[in-house]
């Protein structure tokens, strides 16, 4: 296969799938948040963290896509093209799993906080740890690009 095509596919995956997972996360958490906002608007400023962390997933994809974009002229061999493709796949899988984690624990966090606001500080751990999954993927993906 043509190295430039493979690396472009990697680029497309690295931006497309993180954006999709961010969208799904925001859809799930955002609707839950809107529901709670009608009952207890004073909690919104705290709970907005779920939506913003979902949004950050798209930003990680954007970062990898930017870096791949910068490397595109250097990709001439099949080996480096494969690295570009794999780095895109890594960040995609990482953000999809982080998105799943944030969606589930985020919407539960929102519901639980509405019932008992004092549980927020322990329940938020689930959301932020899910989000950390994306960071691990980002780091490795980043190092793979560094080797191109």
């Amino acid at each position, binding site marked *: 296969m043509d190295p430039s095509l493979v690396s472009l596919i990697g680029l497309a995956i690295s931006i497309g799938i993180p954006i999709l997972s961010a969208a799904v996360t925001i859809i799930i958490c955002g609707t839950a948040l809107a529901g709670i906002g009608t009952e207890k608007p004073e909690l919104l*400023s*705290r709970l*907005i*963290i779920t939506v*913003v*962390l979902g*949004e*950050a997933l798209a*930003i*990680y994809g*954007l*970062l990898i896509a*930017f*870096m791949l974009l910068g490397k595109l002229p250097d990709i001439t061999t099949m080996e480096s093209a494969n690295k570009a493709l794999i780095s895109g796949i890594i960040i995609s899988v990482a953000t999809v799993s982080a998105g799943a984690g944030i969606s589930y624990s985020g919407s539960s966090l929102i519901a639980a906080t509405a019932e008992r606001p*004092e549980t*927020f*500080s322990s329940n*938020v*751990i689930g959301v*932020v*740890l899910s*989000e*950390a999954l994306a*960071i*691990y993927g*980002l*780091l490795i993906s*980043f190092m793979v690009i*560094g080797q191109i």
Partner: protein
Amino acid sequence: MFRDIKDYLLVTSYILKCIIKKDLPHEDDDMVEMQKLKVLVYEDYIDAVVRSLGHAGIVQFIDMREKPEDWEEVLVPHKGSNETIAKYSGLLSKIEAAFETLHIKPEDFPTPEIPITKEPTQKVLAAVEQKLAELPIEEAKIYALASRIDQIIDDLGIKPEQFDKENKLAQSEEMELEHIEFELIEIDKTIETTGLSNHPVLVERILAKHFDDLDEIGKKFAELSKFVIDSERYFGKRLVTLKKTVESIIGTIKTGINFEEIREDLLTLWTIAKEEKRIAEEKGKFVRSSKTVFFEAWVPESLEKEAVERIKNASDGNFIISDEFPDLDENVPILIKECPSYLQAFGKLECAYGRPSSGDIDPLRIFAITFPILFGIMFADVGQGAIFVIAGVIFTLLRRKGKLAKGGDIIQYLLISGEMLIYIGFSAIFFGFIFGEFFGPSGVLHPITLAQIGPFQIGGFEPTQEPMKMLKFAILVGAIHITIGLILRFLNELRHKHYKLAPIPICWIWLIFGSLFMWAYWGGISNISLWFAEGSLMLGGLIILPLMLIFVFVAVAEGFMVGVGFTVEVFAETLSHTMSYSRLMALGLIHSAMNYLFLVLGGVEHGVFPLQSIPLIAIGTILVLIIEGLVVFVHTLRLHWVEWFSTFHSGEGIPFKPFEST
């Protein structure tokens, strides 16, 4: 030389003592002592005691039902208050019905002063019921109508003498009360829908002026106002008529009733009933024997004398009291202190997570330093930092002058965070100089190297050009940040006198910096095989030994299995929490890259901004400030809430809420 060291040691030990001990002259103001009062009162006086304490609002009663193991063999829960609560609820609804009949809105009047009695609540209840039954509420109805008509006339600015001569409708003297009332309701409704009560001044002005003098718009306005004037004339007429009718009816009543007095009485009864109901509810927290009632309460040390004095007076000496310091592990309520206004935003962010437990160090001031630093690293930019500073100054000035006090939610948030924007703006400017960013990597500034610690370079590189250096820098910042948290944990353990657990944070710091050193010394994670070959001694000393020590300390203090679990947790957290700080790198790079995009679009090269690039860069800056600003803010918050607070800040503090009966 020797003297220097001795002085230094003296000063250090003094500072440490100040932090650990609470009774030294320079005591930390955050430490407010709470005393636990244990009181046994003869049952006839318990109502008086609670009433007296509730008036002063100085103690917080402890709910005894939560720890039945302390009393259940000797005492029983305080029963019988449910019936009293129900009776008071009934009484309250009766009084409120009377308010309705007499058209009194209790919230419009000041709360009357009520005398503190020593009577038991049953007697108070009986007295209130009797007094209420004696009040001539039906008879006072007509007076209520009269005062209401007066009020409406007042509100509309109607002068009764204006209508005296036009009043030819005086035939309705026999009009029944109900009709008058019905008409008043109608008038009320109309006034509300036409907004007439807002117009008295306007009406007066228009009435006074000749319409001929007015210009075109003035005439139209006058035409529009005609309806208002007409309706005012109509209402004025009707109201004055009604007033006369009511007055003539009142004239026929022989018995003199003072409406003001009845209102005062009702308000007093209402206040008493509300207070007694609250007291009855509070008593549900107590326990009792056959003749005595026992309760526990938190009281700030400074108010203890007053509380004891009040209990003594209210119970005529029929009480037993003991005070004690709470256990070190007990969750004692904390007195909430006002945050200084320049730290208000940080205070809110900290409280959103949870307040520090009693006796813990309040990390607010350290939080207010580390928060802007982490934000600045991710948002490093001289130009955008300056925008933050300017916005912050504007918001702060607006807030100090009290403007926009009625703005929406978002405006309020911005106003509160005025000072915070200034701090994070300065931090962004500082790191902008270090990483050479001015509205992105535009080439205007050159990165400044601050220091070089082994492989960790602080500043002197552009993050987008050398991301690996940025990653190392981010990890170093993370290690330092977590270390600050662990030092606070160490001090907290000392303050709680958990001497067996105190060495754990120290070993943990050893582990973090040991691993960091290993990582740097052996050239990164890719050479990890060397750690176990040539570096095995170093591995033992820097990673395995502190882990073993942590295990030993926890196992000695809390048992073997807890020790195993905790050691595994420490190992995992050291890895994951430090790695988590790599988001400093990721978000810093994204910030730089997003700005770079607009720089390229605008055609900026080598620090020269062509004129046509300015609008593009302005749009880009606004986008970055809003979207990136929010994301970076949340990530900074998350680093503090999860990675930092989890090392030392439990967030389980309960604010001290004294019982207030009024």
